[in-house]
């Protein structure tokens, strides 16, 4: 049982020894100096020290030396450090937003079976009163995000998959040359521009048409956010549809089926996991969309009555952060970071889920390509 890790360790030691034997002493020295100085400048930066630039200069000097004398090794080491920075950034994001969110989790403890669970009260009561009662709740925010996301998914899911089918299977080449960049450009319109149009045109229109009290509805925010998530769904779903081997479609068409029959019985089922990954990524985009929601909603966290009332929009996780960050201090600020934590965890689950699905699809179709 223990053999495997030990064998692996031996393997690493052998590799390391080979590396040490092959590499000259000066290269090793430059490598060590570079690594140590990079790590120490990182450490100093985390401590907000003005001395950060000293090891940074040492690092740059060691790279320059390495670049002149040992280019191969330096290129490899530097690009590897750059690669590691992605993991580092993600780790720093996790650590920093969790640390900032902790105070409110600590305050909002609640007892379950005699055990004090930090942060539970954020999810069990629905009152958000930062000034008067120092009460914070993520419940109305999560409710708002769910409402917006459901509407957005109902818009972006079917329309996005239909557009992906159109672009990848149906459209004649000339039409595709127009539609595809068109959908990509739709992704380029900044969310604040959508929000501005929503705020000046759609919200007043909705309030008048439905005789609402005040402005801001989850329904139309969801529709706008769905439009913004649509390009993500289209481009990922289109990739999935394109990855279905032509031979499978040809086999079906050769039997005399129509295009549509081939799509529904061969292409869509084969690409199903990829298409659902596309919808998941679209959901992730919708959850994280900030500015359109901030500008179009009422920015006062509470639950509408009845709960499914999509015509009244109060606040979402993202819009609460954007709208309140400027004036929040203390526990309120920490509660906003807690909203960020919930967002981050949800989106990370969606991202990892869609990656697993895509990987599975690649494995399934991989043999035939």
């Amino acid at each position, binding site marked *: 049982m223990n053999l495997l890790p030990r064998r692996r360790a031996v393997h690493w030691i052998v590799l390391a020894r080979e590396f040490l034997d092959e590499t000259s002493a000066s290269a090793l020295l430059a490598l060590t100096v570079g690594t140590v100085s990079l790590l120490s400048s990182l450490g100093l*930066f985390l401590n*907000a020290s*003005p001395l950060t*630039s000293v090891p940074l200069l040492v690092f740059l000097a060691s790279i320059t030396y390495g670049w002149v004398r040992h*280019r191969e090794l330096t290129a*490899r080491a530097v690009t*590897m450090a*750059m*690669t590691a920075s*992605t*993991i580092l*950034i993600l780790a*720093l*994001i996790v650590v*920093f*937003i969790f640390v*900032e969110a902790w105070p409110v989790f600590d305050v909002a403890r609640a007892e379950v079976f005699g055990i004090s669970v930090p942060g539970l009260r954020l999810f069990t009561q629905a009152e958000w009163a930062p000034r008067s009662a120092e009460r914070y709740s993520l419940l109305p925010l999560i409710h708002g995000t769910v409402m917006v996301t459901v509407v957005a998914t109902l818009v972006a899911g079917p329309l996005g998959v*239909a*557009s992906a089918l*159109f672009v990848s299977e149906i459209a004649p080449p000339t*039409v595709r040359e127009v*539609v595809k*960049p*068109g959908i*990509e*450009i739709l992704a*380029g*319109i*900044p969310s604040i521009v959508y*929000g*501005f*149009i929503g*705020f*000046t045109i759609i919200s007043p229109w909705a309030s008048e048409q*439905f*005789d609402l*009290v005040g402005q801001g509805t989850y329904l139309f925010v969801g529709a706008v956010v769905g*439009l913004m998530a649509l390009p993500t769904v289209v481009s990922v779903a289109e990739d999935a549809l394109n990855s279905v081997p032509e031979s499978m479609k040809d086999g079906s068409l050769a039997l005399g089926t*129509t295009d549509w*029959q081939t799509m529904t019985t061969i292409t869509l089922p084969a690409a199903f996991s990829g298409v659902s990954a596309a919808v998941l990524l679209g959901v992730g*985009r919708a959850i994280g*969309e*900030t*500015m359109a929601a*901030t*500008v179009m909603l009422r920015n006062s966290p509470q639950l509408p*009555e*009845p709960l499914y*009332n999509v*015509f*009244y929009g109060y606040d979402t996780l*993202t819009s609460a*952060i*954007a709208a309140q960050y400027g004036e929040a201090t203390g526990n309120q600020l920490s509660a906003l*970071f807690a909203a*960020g934590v919930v*967002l981050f965890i949800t*989106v*990370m689950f969606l991202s990892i889920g869609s*990656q697993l699905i895509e990987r599975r699809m690649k494995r399934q179709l991989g043999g035939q390509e």
Partner: protein
Amino acid sequence: MSTITSRNSLVNEETNRYEFAAGATIALSALLFALGMTALFEFVTLTDPVAGVPIVSVLGGLLVLIGIVVLGLGVSSRLELTESTPDRSAGLVASFVFGGIWFGIGGIVAAGMIGLDGAGWILPAFLFGGGAFAATAFTREDIGSTLPAGVSAILAGGVFLTGVLGPGWSWSPGSFPSDNAVTFFPSVVVPGSVLLCSLLVGWASAKAYAGFGARGRHLGAHVLIYLNALGIIAVLFGLVGFVVSKGAPTAFTGFTIGLGVGPEVTVLGLSFSLPVSWPFLMNGASVFVKIDGILPAVVGTVWLVIGAVLFAVPLAVGAAVFLAEYAEQGRFTSVVEVATNGLWSTPSIVFGLFGASFLIPRFGGSKSLIAGMLTLGFMLLPLVLITSREAMLAVPDEYRDASAALGVSKWQTIRSVVLPAALPGIVTGVILGVGRIAGETAPILVTMAGGTLPAGSETIDVIGGFEFISTPPFVTNEALLEASSALPYQLYALITAGLGGPQFQDAPFSALDFAWANAFILLTVVLSFYAIGITTRYYFRRKLNR
């Protein structure tokens, strides 16, 4: 022999008439759909008369007409008066869609028109929904597709014609409290039901036109999918055109071209006047200028993009080189892949929170340009990394092998073979990524936001801000540590300040016009990046395919 011929010609004649009716119904549905859209966006008022008849009655009459025709198509196919190849059933998807729609119709009729209170709508809703489901699922395809569609059109049209939905009609669900009340008026309900019914009838008659069965489904689905694509493109052009028409006139106020009309600039000790004067882009907002402008925001956005690109692009391309060329597939690369995709989907506001808690305390403790630059750099990193890596993986291995066969070292191969071949892909990725971050508001809102309407004197001067000192950190830059404005943030600040809010002293436009012009400039900047990026990609792809 002659009887067979005459029977054939009879069937042919029937078929011709049938196809004509189906085609005409498709066309009428399209017309109704367009009419419904114009009514929904209030280009026409429902009570306006057309040839003496109010529009709502015209819509009702047309709905009844297409409803009856589509029913006739279904019945004549069922009675085999025409050649068609229907399946045994219209299928589960259609059944659920029709069941759902009729569930809604039942509920609305019970609650909104008969006025059943409380949960009284549930029973009729289930009866109607279940009936429509059964009528679709358990009849032959020709009846199952046309019956529910035709009947809903006839019902809606009949309601319009009889005047039940007159101008005075309204309905608000009783269970909603007064501060969360919703009221439905004919101005929404009528166009909404016209849109829905025209979609249903259009789909059913497209199926009928192709004789149901596989070909019918093919045509029905294609009609809907083409409509969807057309709708998305229409939305795109509508949005862009709307912003341009609202914002361009203000943005170009006082725009002149001519020798020496522009502001004076000094380049390399030579000072001269620019040949272009564009006050909206070249002025700040203050009482001292005639035409208020957004110069500080434009300059802020430019510096933001430069900073983010300088930080993220080398990092991302280096990481992509490692992943594509050096690394072997293993645990490290798959962790990096998960991390990169995770960063790609992390919401922009979370990046903002991270920037605020991580960067601000380490760069002077207040919102600053450099915090915004680096935060956007963090966002740009995964965008560029993913596209660069794909571009490098797309370089054929033959290139690398040929280079290696000449005895060229690995890094030399990467520099002189892989990177040049992948350059178009990398550049496209950078341009599209920059387009994305240039329009981001949320991260800079919490990391570098400046004032609402900065004056021209608040324009940030990064190059002049550098100072060298003898103690660590040896170099400082006041400008980088100051808060600055940026195009998307300024638009947000204008909205939150209230668009009736800051009135300009003597400018020829209002605050709302100013905001539209700001949106127009922002959209132009961002979409130019996208247009350039997409065009380069198409250009290089076509070159590769040749």
